């Protein structure tokens, strides 16, 4: 077992545990912070899988920008403890839900790990910025542009819904 493998399993465990934290912690800020940890662990996983660029970009956009805004909003709401009522599930229901989730998780894990995926040798410059950039702007240029349009639409929509209200006629 080499170092990379140990690192991979450590990060994987971290990602799963913190993801559990996202849905089980009580305070929204704690949930958001767990999500940050999950995303950083995922970024680490990408790096161990030799996708450096993807890993870094993951940290940069998700952990560094999107989650900051999440937490920003949660902080602005400034929830008090009494507003954070316990969700209305009994212990039995919780146990049942947990069992179902665990069952789903295990069966999916079984499904995914059972077959032998054909793995080809990676090209020399796999995951590097040059190969990624080339792929994005040549073979994948249509999805790339479509993603750009998607973001434009999202931006317009956000501005439209959030802009200052006009005086009623």
């Amino acid at each position, binding site marked *: 077992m080499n170092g990379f493998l140990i690192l991979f399993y450590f990060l994987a465990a971290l990602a799963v545990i913190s993801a559990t934290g996202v849905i089980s912690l009580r305070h929204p800020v704690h949930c958001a912070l767990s999500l940050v940890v999950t995303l950083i662990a995922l970024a680490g996983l990408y790096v161990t899988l030799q996708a450096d660029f993807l890993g870094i970009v993951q940290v940069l956009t998700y952990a560094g920008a999107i989650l900051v805004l999440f937490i920003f909003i949660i902080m602005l709401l400034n929830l008090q403890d009494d507003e954070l009522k316990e969700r209305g599930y009994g212990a039995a229901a919780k146990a049942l839900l947990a069992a179902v989730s665990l069952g789903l998780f295990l069966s999916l894990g079984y*499904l995914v790990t059972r077959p032998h995926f*054909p793995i080809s040798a990676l090209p020399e410059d796999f995951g590097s910025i040059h190969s990624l950039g080339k792929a994005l702007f*040549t*073979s994948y*240029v249509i*999805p790339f542009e*479509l993603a750009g349009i998607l973001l434009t639409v999202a931006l317009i*929509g956000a501005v439209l819904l959030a802009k200052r209200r006009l005086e009623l006629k």
Partner: protein
Amino acid sequence: MRLDVLQLWQHAWPSLTLLIAAMVSLLTSVFPSRHRARITAVLAATAFLLSAQGFFHQWGLGEAKGFEFLVVDPLSNYLGALIALIGFITSIAAYPYILSQAEAIPEFFSLLLFAAFGMTTMVMTTNLLAFVLGLEIMSLSLYVLVGLRRYDPRSGEAAFKYFLLGSVATAFLLFGISFFYGSTGTLDLSRIPELLPNPEMATLFKLGALLILLGFAFKVGAVPFHFWAPDVYDGAPMPVTGFMATGVKVAAFGALIRVVEAFAPRHELPLQRWIVMLSFATMIVGNLVALRQRHLKRILAYSSIAHAGYLLLGMATLVGTGEIRAAALSPILFYLLVYSLLTLGVFSVLTILSSGGQELNDLKDLDGLSEKRPVLSAVLSVFFISLAGVPPTAGFLAKYYLFSQAIQVGLYPLAIAGILASAVSLYYYLGPIVRMYFHSHEKTWQAPGVMASLRLLLALMVAGVFYLGLFPASTLEISRRTVPIRALEAPLASPSAKLP
């Protein structure tokens, strides 16, 4: 591989026209605010018409051309033309409505164009990556359009519900796509029939296909994934509801045709059984629950669910042995055309009635409309009756054509269920008509006069209902000649991650 932009423009210009118009319409904010709504409306209507004409022209050429992620073939052109026409009718009908709103929002038309562009992208691709992006462009535009009446809490609620549940649907879809990619090594649907089935991957592949199908079921509002539809239709602004009820259905079913086409040859998938089950549940639940509704938009929501069931019935007939049955495609396409025409007709009239600044909602609001607005009432009745499938109209013929295909294939129980369900539907379609003609009006419903262009449009649509019902031959011929291309000339190579 370099993309030939000129060639792309040559084949896909009708779709790109929508995109360019959407971008340009955002720039109209330089004009004084008084004229902005008008300028964008004219721009949008022109672009939609131009695009529809372009799609039809391309259809006439009958060519099939595959780019790396886009496909231009008769099927995509047919559906594209339909989407552009839906956009055109919506933008004409919505104009007075938008002007009457407290916030006259010219961006409405931009988002309409963006949504239509997303829809055309959905039907113009066999690649799941481009499909998801198109789907999200459409969905995001629609989320905002639904929440456009910002001062109306119901509109916000609808937008939020739609957003949350739509995201869940997308998650399903993406999850399915990831399994699909893991088991096949490609995102391109057109390559699926050629891939050798790997017995180890069969379960994974099946799961992926099922999740993708469920994502579609959600988007078209099939039972049991229909819960969002009534709430969202109810809260959305009237023209947006019409656009959603028609455009989304056309785009989603168009894309579903390609998915079914790709999956049909794979025998390990019980594709027909899945679709039959979905269809059965959707027809029954949609029609029965509609009986109990008191809100006009909710009735129409359940009506659209029911129609999704009929269309799924068509999809079930599409799955033959080994490959899709081309003969079964034409009823679906014809049904999509007729359904869009009728639903848009209903919503156009309702939009006119809602253009006084107040949203028509309750069934009671229609009481005695025939005395105040006899022409509008008559037009509305025609559309409703046709939706129910009463003989001399287009609705009857579309259903007849669809059910007869199902019987030919041997799906007797499903066809019988469909016929019974559509008989039931007559009750709730007649409800509004009874209200309009046989109830006295206690409340006077304020609605402005109708623009000349809109009158012309409505007249054409009513004429279309009878034309398609009585002389369907030429239109049926068009739908018969619309086929998807089987496989692309150039097999696609995904450069970064390709399995051997």
